[in-house]
């Protein structure tokens, strides 16, 4: 049965006819998103470059090559182009880019949405694209009028001449597309921006308030079937024997098949597939992780720390000698737990495999990797796989992995029909690519004059990068990245890294190295301040004399939060960080009564350079703080017998509306180049709160989550 639906005719298809030569030639029927009209093919017009299509009817389509997962790229990136193109932002239709060379993120070396650098990568690229297209549109008009292009100007989607004539961009597009591509276009100075720096409304909001926004879970294709997947409960295990006799006779079931990812049940509807999956009788071969648990993981990391001094990631002076001659030393061990991403939209993928092609519909942060994974599962070449990126119901790094793609492709191939494979929440929680655990061993020393003379830090952790990019040659995992950027002035500094695998896959999670490293660095800085009987603020400022942007955000955050003047019963803790070329300071205001912690307020001052859209920046900072609060207070994935014990939101607690503290987010105006905003603010939450807990109780927390500690 099919019933009338607001969305029933919304699925269009993106056809990539050719990607020829060095330039990108696209013949596309571009699907719009967010409930905008997309039933008609674009009228004749022109594809002015890889990011811009102007149709004869004046509709303007911007192709965005980063995935929209809430961080606002479907608004911020079009703003960059629209600034130079001289068009109204609200007129733009956004479509997701297919796989293509033009769409590689130069800062990440692939078509990757991650590392909080979408705006940094696009900052010049898309403004140049807009200016180039504008120049070509003006040239087309000037040619028609037989005047000097210098006598024409572009404004609000029109080119006007000095003698009062005008053409719309739609009139000009087909001619403009054939004009020579200008080199060295001049970009507007900041003073001339009319759009960049404004809180223009997000282009994706309308579709997100009426249910029409299309996430991967919402993809509909004619004749589509649904699939559920049974994965081995023990991480890394596999099915030894499958008895599908009960499942195969259940209503709607079309096929049960074994894949490398697990046993897939394909049915007419998802609920049928799920019931039949749960009726499978599978004998699992648990494999090497049968006895893995948290104690074993911490034991393995501790042994590795003792056995190995680690590879040197940063060395200034001679930390060992300075520690030996120090007047006073301090040492501590910190531990960071495994975490789950827990995106609200569980992993899912829709595949339509034909003899010579595969159409993939997926919320992914890595289009090329999705293409390769699908090609391998379908037995096709990568260029036979067409990747349609949907909106992502949260990414946070989880969708940098494509482990949910191959089973969907295998199922579609087996039943010769489009298949949407959906993970349940329990599948998602128990088969994440978890944030790796880390053990961080710290020591520091003050010299006879009371100056911080030595800082030594040894990080022991499994590697994300070794699995994600096995061809890479960098021996340092991204988990050490922020520690290597330690900002405080200390003459003798040693950072070492020991890679130690724990038998399960670990992945990138929002604020990848920053969250663990900032917790440790900022907590240990507070320990040093206490040892030196100095204020945590004063000690930091003393060591930031050559770091003006750090010092500025720290001072302002302290001032806004009332540092030194906490209300009765309240205590303050602070944290500082530069991450993703954004400078932040946070102050947490807490109370601890009868062992019960309450976080009353978080103050956050942010210098992220030039802002494209301050309202989106502010929302990302709020978002990151809430994300950081869940992790700091409760975040922990526990394993026993190789199985993850957290299965749903009742055992993996996330912050709810009644638990959000007051937030004071203050954004600094800056002329510096744009920094990243999606991730960094996560990292400061845990150390700021734990430093405030120390101020309140004298108790130093050297592991997370806070809920695992007794505060009373």
């Amino acid at each position, binding site marked *: *049965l*099919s*019933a009338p*639906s*607001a*969305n029933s005719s919304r699925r269009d298809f993106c056809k990539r006819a050719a990607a020829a030569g060095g330039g990108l030639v696209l013949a596309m029927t571009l699907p719009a998103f967010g409930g905008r009209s997309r039933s008609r093919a674009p009228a004749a017009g022109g594809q002015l470059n890889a990011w811009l299509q102007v149709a004869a009817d004046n509709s303007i389509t911007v192709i965005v090559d980063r995935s*929209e*997962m*809430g961080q*606002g790229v479907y608004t911020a990136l079009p703003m960059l182009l629209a600034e130079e193109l001289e068009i109204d932002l609200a007129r733009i239709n956004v479509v997701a880019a297919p796989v293509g060379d033009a769409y590689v993120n130069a800062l990440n070396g692939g078509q990757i949405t991650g590392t909080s650098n979408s705006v940094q990568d696009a900052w010049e690229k898309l403004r140049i694209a807009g200016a180039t297209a504008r120049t070509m549109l003006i040239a087309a008009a000037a040619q028609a009028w037989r005047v000097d292009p210098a006598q024409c100007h572009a404004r609000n989607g029109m080119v006007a001449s000095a003698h009062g004539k005008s053409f719309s961009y739609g009139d000009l597009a087909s001619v403009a597309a054939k004009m020579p591509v200008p080199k060295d276009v001049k970009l507007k100075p900041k003073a001339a921006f009319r759009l960049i720096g404004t809180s223009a*409304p*997000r282009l*994706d*909001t*309308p*579709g*997100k*308030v*009426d*249910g*029409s*926004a*299309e*996430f991967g*879970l*919402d993809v509909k294709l004619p004749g589509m079937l*649904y699939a559920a997947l049974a994965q081995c409960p023990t991480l890394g295990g596999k099915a030894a024997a499958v008895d599908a006799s009960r499942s195969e006779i259940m*209503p709607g079931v079309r096929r049960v098949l074994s894949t490398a990812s697990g046993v897939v049940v394909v049915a007419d*509807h*998802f*609920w049928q597939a799920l019931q039949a999956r749960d009726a499978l009788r599978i004998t699992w071969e648990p494999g090497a992780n049968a006895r893995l648990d948290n104690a074993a993981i911490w034991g393995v990391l501790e042994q590795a720390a003792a056995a190995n001094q680690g590879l040197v990631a940063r060395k200034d002076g001679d930390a060992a000698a300075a520690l030996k001659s120090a007047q006073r030393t301090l040492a501590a061990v910190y531990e960071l737990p495994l975490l789950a991403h*827990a*995106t*609200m*939209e*569980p992993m899912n993928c829709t595949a339509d495999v034909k003899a010579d092609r595969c159409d993939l519909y997926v919320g992914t942060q890595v289009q090329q990797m999705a293409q390769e994974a699908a090609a391998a599962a379908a037995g096709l070449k990568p260029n036979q796989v067409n990747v349609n990126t949907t*909106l*992502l*119901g*949260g990414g946070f790094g989880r969708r940098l992995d494509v482990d949910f793609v191959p089973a969907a492709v295998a199922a579609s191939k087996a039943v010769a029909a489009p298949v949407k494979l*959906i993970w349940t*929440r329990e599948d998602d929680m128990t088969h994440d690519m978890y944030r790796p655990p880390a053990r961080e061993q710290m020591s520091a020393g003050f010299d006879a004059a009371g100056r911080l003379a030595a800082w030594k830090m040894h990080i022991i952790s499994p590697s994300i990068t070794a699995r994600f990019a096995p061809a890479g040659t960098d021996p340092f995992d991204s988990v050490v990245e922020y520690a290597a950027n330690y900002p405080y002035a200390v003459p003798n500094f040693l950072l070492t890294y020991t890679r130690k695998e724990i038998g399960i896959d670990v992945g990138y999670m929002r604020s990848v190295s920053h969250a663990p490293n900032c917790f440790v660095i900022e907590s240990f800085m507070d320990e040093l301040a206490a040892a030196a009987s100095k204020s945590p603020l004063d000690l930091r400022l003393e060591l930031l004399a050559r770091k003006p942007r750090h010092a500025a955000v720290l001072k302002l955050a302290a001032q806004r939060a009332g540092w030194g003047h906490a209300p009765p019963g309240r205590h303050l803790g602070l944290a500082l960080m530069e991450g993703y070329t954004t400078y932040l300071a946070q102050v947490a205001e807490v109370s601890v009564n009868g062992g019960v912690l309450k976080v009353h307020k978080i103050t956050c001052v942010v210098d992220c350079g030039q802002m494209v859209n301050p*309202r989106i920046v502010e*929302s*990302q900072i*709020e*978002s*990151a*703080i*809430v*994300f950081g609060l869940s992790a700091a207070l409760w975040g922990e994935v526990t394993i026993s017998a190789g199985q993850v014990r957290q299965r*749903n*939101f*009742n055992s993996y607690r*996330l912050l*709810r*509306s*009644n638990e*959000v503290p007051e*937030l004071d987010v203050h954004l600094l105006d800056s002329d510096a180049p744009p920094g990243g905003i999606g991730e960094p603010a996560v990292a400061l939450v845990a150390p700021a709160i734990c430093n405030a807990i120390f101020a309140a109780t004298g108790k130093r927390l050297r592991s997370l989550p806070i809920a695992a500690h007794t505060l009373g």
Partner: protein
Amino acid sequence: MARITVNNQRLDVDAAPDTPLLWVLRDHLGMTGTKYGCGMALCGACTVHVDGVAMRSCILPLRMLEGKAVTTIEGLSKDRTHPVQRAWIELDVPQCGYCQSGQIMSAAALLKSNPRPSDAEIDAAMAGNICRCGTYLRIRKAIHRATELLPPPDPQS
């Protein structure tokens, strides 16, 4: 074959009686605005109205809906003009947006029973809806804004 009323339309559905309303809406009726998040009424992503009351459709079997009126996000208004939707647009509440259908349905149900909720009443009413992007403070502001956009109370009532 079951007959249910969704967004003022009477519809026949060929699904097993234990099928949760969530999957009936999404897979049988093509109304994908209502989202799957947890399957256990823990996150609120699947919130719809049943006879005007916010309910979690992921645990409501089809057989319980005989004679009831279901409203989904698609039926809240024809053109995003419900006060809650207008407020959400004005404040640019959504980030990834996945939970927002459920948030909006919960907020709309709250305002129906309490047209002037306090912060604490909003937090209590919305505590069943998880937003992993952390849009909670904007949701609270938008609910207050929506109260200003509500039509004036009917003098007859």
